[in-house]
Each structure stands twice: as C-alpha cells, then as structure tokens.
C-alpha cells in the first residue's frame, strides 16, 4: 500500500498539514498516514483523530526519524508545514527545510494559514523549458495524478527562452505555447506564458488559475545564490507547494 506521510507537529498548522495530505492523497490515490516525531503528541493525536487518520509516533531524533519514515518503500511523499518567516533564507520551517534538502522523494510544503482544502483539481506546474526541470514532473508526478486532474503549465520567459520572432504575435505565442507543452509536459491541458520576476509570476498565475497545488522541481540546493524561485514561492504561496527533487537514481 502506498502512502503519503503527514508530518504533524504541535503547532496550529498541524491541521492544515493533515488536510493538505488528505487532499494530496485524494489527488494521487494513496492512503495518508500521520506521523509525529517528538515527545508531546497530544496535538497530533487530536488532529489525526479528528480526521480519522492513523498516527504513528516516530522514535528518535526528529529530522532523522522523519527522513527514515520517508525512505520507507511504501512512502511516496511527505507533507510538512511551513512555519518560517516570509522572505527569510529558510522560508519553510527548520524541520521542513532540513528534510527538503535531504529527501529524494517529493515533499509538499503547506503554508501556515491555509484554509481547509479539498483535493485540488487544478495543479500549476512552472517549467523552465528544459528537460532537466520537466523530467521529474513527467516521471514522478504525472503518473501519480488522477485522470481528472488538470495540469496547467506556466512558463516565465528568460533571455534563453524569449521567442525570437512572433510573426503574428497572438497566434504565434499560442503556437509557441502548444509546442512548449508538447515538448515538456504533454499531459498539461493549457499553458500560461509570462514575463517578469519568476516567483511573482508563479504566485499570480496560481491565484488567477485557482490552482490548489504548485509543483516545482528543484536541485535540493538551498544555499545562498540558489533556489531563489523556490524560496520565493515557499514564502509567498497561498497553496501547498510540491517540490520534486531532481535525482539521478531511484529515490531513497
């Protein structure tokens, strides 16, 4: 049985995390298991009971035990709450960030004040326009999704991807977008093309499109000078963010 882990802590965000995990489970058709690493399990226990989800208490050091649980063969992803301050170097919470950087499986980061949500029917996938960024989406996300989930691609032009010529702009832009989708995410139903600051544009399109989940692939490097878009979206997004790590080998 495949499952998604909802990493519950003792904060008020635990309920949002579990709701988001349940929504992600519905999106991907897998079971949800709540986990808690720590001594004080009252809040997680109460939240899990409220939702009728089994809770497993993880022994040992918090981050290591969460990573070990995620490494289990039947765990396909984990859901964490983001407790970091907006705009900081570590926009998600300390535990979440540690797991994010170490995990080779998908991790969903849930914004702190997120309202209860149903399973998202529309997923926003920002793509850079190269196989490296689209491959995790194609190989690790798309196979998980239920058939009726709508994938919306957003691409924010960079100097490398800026169209060289648009003979008839509206039509050529549509053609350009169709080809972009065909190349990098054929299962997407539509594409939105933008110019500007990438993170900002992703947030805007997520709101415009009513997306219930934003999916980003990333190289697991949150050091200075890297992952600016990831940082921005984790700090600003109003909806859960699914991070798909770029890995060379099978996930561990």
């Amino acid at each position, binding site marked *: 049985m495949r499952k998604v882990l909802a990493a519950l802590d003792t904060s008020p965000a635990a309920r949002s995390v579990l709701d988001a995990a349940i929504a992600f489970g519905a999106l991907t058709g897998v079971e949800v298991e709540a986990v808690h690493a720590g001594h004080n399990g009252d809040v997680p226990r109460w939240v899990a009971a409220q939702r009728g989800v089994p809770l497993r208490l993880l022994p040992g050091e918090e981050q290591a035990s969460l990573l070990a649980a995620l490494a289990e063969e039947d765990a396909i992803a984990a859901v964490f709450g983001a407790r970091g301050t907006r705009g900081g170097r570590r926009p998600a919470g300390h535990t979440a960030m540690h797991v994010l950087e170490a995990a080779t499986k998908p991790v969903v980061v849930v914004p702190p004040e997120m309202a209860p949500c149903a399973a998202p029917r529309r997923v926003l996938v920002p793509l850079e326009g190269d196989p490296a960024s689209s491959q995790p989406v194609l190989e690790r996300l798309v196979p998980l999704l239920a058939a009726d989930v709508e994938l919306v691609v957003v691409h924010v032009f960079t100097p490398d991807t*800026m169209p060289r010529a648009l003979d*008839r702009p509206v039509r*050529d832009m549509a053609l350009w977008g169709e080809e972009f989708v*065909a190349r990098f995410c054929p299962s997407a139903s539509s594409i939105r093309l933008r*110019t500007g600051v990438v993170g900002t544009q992703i947030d805007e399109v997520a709101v415009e499109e009513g997306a219930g989940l934003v999916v980003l692939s990333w190289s697991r490097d949150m050091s200075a000078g890297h992952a600016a878009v990831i940082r921005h979206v984790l700090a600003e997004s109003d909806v859960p963010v699914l991070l798909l790590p770029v890995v060379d080998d099978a996930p561990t």
Partner: protein
Amino acid sequence: MRAFDAVLDSTFAAVVFDWSGTAFAGRASDATALRERVEALCANGVEVVVSGTSVGDVDGPLRARPRGPGRLHLCVNRGSEVFEVGASGPEPVWRREGSAPEDVGRWIADHLASQGVTGSLILVVGDGRLLVLPELERAVAVSVGPESGGVPAGVLHIGGGPERLLQLLDHQLARHDERRVPWVDADPAWVLELPDAAEMQRAAESIGSVGNGWIGVRGAREEDGPGSNPLVLVNGAYTGPPAWRLLPGPVWTALDVTDPGADRRFLDLRTGVLVRCAAAPAELRTIRFASRERPMLTALRAEARVGHLAPAPVAAPAGMHLETRLIGDAAVACTSDRGGAAIVMVTRDRTVDASGRRMVERLAGWAAEPADAAGPAHAAAQLAAAESLGFDLLLREHRAAWAARWSDAAVTIEGDPDSQLAARFALFHLLAAAPEEGEAAVGARGLTGSAYDGHVFWDADVFVLPALAAVRPAAARAMLEYRIRRLPDAMRVAVEEDGAGARFPWEGARDGADVTPRSLRNHRGQLVPVHTGQHEEHIVADVAWAASEYAAWTGDTSFLHGPGLRLLVETARWWASRIRVDHDGRGHLYGVVGPDEYHEIVDDSAFTNVMARWNLRRAAAVVAACGASAGVGADEVAAWHRLADGLVDGWDTDRGLHEQFTGYWDLEPLVMASVAPPPVAADVVLGSERVRASQIIKQADVLMLHHLVPGELPPGSLEPALDFYEPRTAHGSSLSPPIHAALLARAGQPERALELFRMAARLDLDDLTGTTAGGLHLATLGGSWQALAGGFLGIRPGEEALSIDPVLPGEWTGLSLRFRHRGAAVEVAADHEAVTVTTDRPLVVRVAGGAPTPCVGGPTTIPYGRGAR
C-alpha cells in the same frame, strides 16, 4: 564482404557496365541471358549504359531491344559516340566534338542526373577505365574482372566475370519483384538528416514534409506515436464558413511498426523523397513521396523483418472524423467539412513476404472537393493509372520530374556547404508549395503544417512569388491566378468599404473574403483586437507588385496586358479612392498598419504610401503601354499621376531618411543594443505598449521599400536607412532577416549580410522561432532565395538587360544560381572577380552597372570589381 552486402542491399536506378570481359566473354559466348536481363531492367525503369568498342561489337551479340521506360545506351568508339537502343535498334544521340576523353563520362553523368539518378543510385561494373571516371566517382563501383594490376581505390573487387554480372543483375531484378525499398543517393550536398532530438519531433515533421504543390505530407513516422502530428493538406481545400482553415486529409502513411528501435530519417532534396531506416531487430526501411509528375498521387513503400511490419488502416487526422468504405479491394477514406470541402483518397496495399522480410506498398490516389466534384471516382482513376505503372516507375518519373525542376533552380554556394544545403532546402520547399496549373493558394506555412490555418498573406505575393517567378514561372502564375479569380470579390469589398477598385484581404482563404480574425485571446487569456485585417492594406499594392514582378522575370506580356493589367488597374483605383488630399494638395493615407506591426494604425506609413504611389504609377505605365485596349481613360490616368506625385512619403530632407510614419521621430529613441540581442520578440521583452511608444521596430519597413521598389526612392538613400533602421530592428518577424541580408549585401556589407542570410536560411532547420512545429516559414525561405539572387548576386530582371552586381562574403568562393529570365534558361555564376553567364538563348546582361554585354549560348565570363581592373 560488408561492402558487397551493401551492394546487394541496394536497388540501383542505373547500371553501367563494360562490354568486353565484364559482360561478354567473347565471340563464342551467348548473350541471350544478358539480353533478357537488360530488357527486364529497362522494363523496371532502370537506365542501362554499356561501354564498348563499337556499336556492332556490342549490339551484334546483345541484340537487346528494350521497350522502356528505362533506356539502353551504348557508349562506343572510345567514348566518342553514344547510341540509344530502342525497339528498332541503335540510334546515335551524341557525338564528342572535342578531344577530351572524359566527355563521355560527363555525358553519362548528365544523362543520368537529368533523370534524378546520381551517385550511389548508380552501379558501375567494369574492369578498366569505366570504374574510375571522375564524373561517376560517387557511384558504386564493382569489378568482376581479374584486376591483376591491382584494384583501383574505391572499387569493390568481387571477380567472377560475366557470370557474376548476371548474378548482380538477377539480384536487382529480384529486388524489384520483391518490392524492396529503394534508397537515395547519400550525397551530403543534397540529403538532409531530420533532427532526432525528442523535443524537435514536430519540427522535424515539418522539415521532412514532402509535397508537390497540390498535396503536402508531413514527415511523421508511419506508426505515428506520442507527440507526433501527422498531417496531409491539399492546396486550396479549405473548410468553412465560419472557420476557414485547410482541411486535414486522411493520414495515408499509417503502418503498424513493431519495435522499430532507433531510426534515422533523411530528406533527399534532389529527388523529393523521405526515407527512414532502423537497424536490427526490425531492419526497417521506408520511402515515401508525393508524386511530382502526378499531383494527385502519393506513394509509400516499407520493409522490415517479418513480425515488425504490417499494413494499418488509413488513420483519421487528429480531431477529425474519417469516413471509410471499400470499392472492391480498394479502401476509400474521406475527410470532409460541412462547408463542402472534402479530401478523398483511394488506396490499395500490396504486401510481399520474402527472405524473412515483409514489404508493404501503398499507392494512394487523391481528389479534393469542391474543386473536383468527381471525388472517389477521380481518386480511383488516379490510383488505377498509378498501379498500371507500379511503384518503381512512379519513382522513376518522380525523380526525373524533380530533376527537371532543379535544372532551372540549382543553387551552388562554394565554400559554405551548410549554407548551400540550407538554400537547397529553401528552394525544395518553395517548389513543393505551389501547384503549377490552376490556382495556387500558398499559405504562410505552405502545406507543411496547420499554423495560420493555411491563410494566404503578403508572404505569398512578396516573399514566395519572386523566387518561383524566377525558378518555376508556372507556379508563380498559378499564385497570381489565385488573386485574379478573387478580383471580383476584392472589388465588391472595395465598394463595401466606400472605396473603388479592388481591396484584397490581408488574410485570404477559399473565396475573396478577408478571414483575418477580428480578435484573439492572448497568452494571458485576454481578448485582444487584431487590426491587421482592417488596416494592413498594403496587401493591395503587394498583389500588384507581385503581378509586375512576375512579368519582369518572365516577360509575359500577354499576362501583363491581360489579367495583370486588371490587377494593376483595380488596385490603383483602390488607392485613388483611399488617398485623402489636404488643403495643401498633399495626399495622405490615414489609419494603416505597415510591415512593422509593433506600431499599428498609424498615419502616412512610408511603406504603404510609397507602395501605393508605385502602384498608381505602374498601373499608369502599363495602361499607357496597352493604349486604348486598356479601357482606362486618360483623365483617370492623369489623376493617378497627380495623386502619386502629391502623396507624402515621409522623406525627411534634413535627415536624409524616410520617417516610418507620422510621429515616428518623436518616439523614445531606443535601439536594440539596449534592449536585447536580435532576433527577439521585442514586444514580449518590453511589452507591446512600451515598444509601441519606442522606435524599436519589428522588421524591415522603410527598408522593405529599398528591397521592393528602389526606383521610388532617392538615390543613395539605402545606406543611411540601413544605418538608422537596422539598429532599431528586433527582427521579431521571420520575414525580416532575409530582407536585411539582401539589403546589406547591396550596401556592400556582405559579411553582416551572411550572418542574417544564415539566420534566415536555417530558421526552420534550427527551429529558431520555436514554432516550426506548425509548419515551415515559407516567406523566410522565399526571402532567403531573394537574398541570394537580389542581394549577393545583385540580380534584377529587366526588359533591356538582366542586371548582375555580385557582392560575395569572403567565406564564399563562388555563388551560382539557375533561373528563367524572359524565357531563357540562365545560370549566373560569380566569384570575387568575375561573373560567368550561361544561357540557352541570346541574353543581354549588365554587370556591376557596366555596359550591356550580349551573351549567346555557352558561357560568357565578364570580370567585375577587382577582376575588372
């Protein structure tokens, strides 16, 4: 023996062999078996050439009397004479005039090349000089003789004498019987390998399209597969109303291919075929073509190891319903539209299993309604006629038909094989874009993709037509016929818009109505108005210019004084009704869109006004030439002259420049160096409002005038215009680079011109725009030819003389083009010091502005530049 395996694995289109020793052992021998093979090969369309001592020596014992279509030639008397052997025996067809012994090699090579047969399509079997003729150096050379003196380099020695030759010929006949897949001459100067990167899949399908002007077939793999976009389009077969778009036809190339493995695909530009191969386990090979000789016929043959290949039903195009039924054992498939358009195909598969291989052959006859109301019956007749010939002979005539087209369209760029291949690619698809009779609706992407729904823009008139007027006048004439047949509609529209004359549509389809969308949803989902349909009215003058340009290249006065005159007169009348004269007597055109679509709806666009002025003057000149028969009164002509003379053109005497439109000088003086490196869609970089408020322009606009109507502009104004407008040009239109390449060459900047020429010629090959998946940019391909002809060679057609003024980049050691000029077949070959003109009839040329030089037959070399000093 791998080389010999390669010989056995080829179907040759020509076999050349020595008589004595190779084919015939001596007087005591019997040539009956050889005679049977030779006649059978000719019956299969193979050209056979025998080299011998004398006619009697060869024909006496051989006594072959082939009935064609392949021909038997005897090269005898030490290569000084050639006889063609028909049903009634040998007849002389060529005699060497000089003493050069290599002439016979050239004759053989030229004769075969005229059939589209070159290089590795030729098998040479001999034991002596024949094997090392330099003219046949890329042929497959096999020696069956003893070769006691050593085997020449590049020759495969298998020995065995005449018996081995018979075995080779038997093997060739077996390949024909088993319907094995023939191949192409792997000449890197003519064969283009399609990109195999996954992200280039759909672009590769556009690049690998094959067409004959009437039908176009994208180069999708036979088994289709994820991401593929197989598509068949027929010229002029539009759906509608209300949505006017080219109707996709039945996907006739569908086959069941199992586990083909990695493959390679090659487009042979010389013979217009697309081939595909994959190694074990499938050992798949396919070949397809749209018959150049029979427009309504397509052909496909495939072979693979048994278990990897099977016929598949003809497939429906994406999102379309396909009607299918049987007529006898022939399958009929049809796509249709409620508006009355229909594409019908009739096909019959033939399958052969032999030697562990399965061969599948599919010929398809086509018809399109409403132009062809006979529908299935006509398509079936096309198929029946094709089947009576068979695949091999259809391929033979197809190759020959392409060879005939290239004989008037050849392009050679010495020192730059990549540009040469790109230029040939451009010409190939231009020649495949327009039918050569009836009317030709040449859409922006031709028949290679569905972008722009096949709508006809000025791309056809201004970019594609000049190239075809020079290299295939019949196709250019068919393009004009498309406009002529819609003249009544254009005249009706003019009246509806409170004008006179003819108002041609910015986007055309089946009838003469404008099918430009009035609004479209942009990439942000917002509904945005599209102004081009109502305001980009320079199309009216573009149509007139195309008619005039066709006449200039062809000298077709019956056209110019007939239907061409009507086009010129009615377009002039449109402008006469559109020009508003102010209190100072100056004429204006308000509210137009010029080629630079970053600045829409402007007043007094220099391009539009000067083209209108040219239109008025040109119409007046042709009316004067026709005299009273033109049916246009002197008062009206005088009014045209007055309007033309009074029409403002944006010329700024102080600056020595044309202002692109009224108010352009006042815009933010941005240049591209401060925005982004061109080519780039500046409207995306800056936003459409910001770019509209700046001097950044999309493409050649004022400069386009220097390309189209330089005679309307002040002498010496090109260089200042280039200096000013080029830095402001984003080349955000695919139409822009080739025109700038042509003008930079004219301005004496060939190195910069070469950069832009390469950008243009490779635009689709490199998918520079990211939109080649939707079809090839035909205007860019046409513009690329114009850059070679009008730019680097400085060719201008003319009634009194053909002007030539070469400016070659240093990297090119030579450039030559073949084309037709006023009925003459002309080749202009230039290096950095001289021009050589070869023509089949008297022609006067003027090189680098020098004195007129008569050229009569043969090559005439005229020094220029450094070579003239």
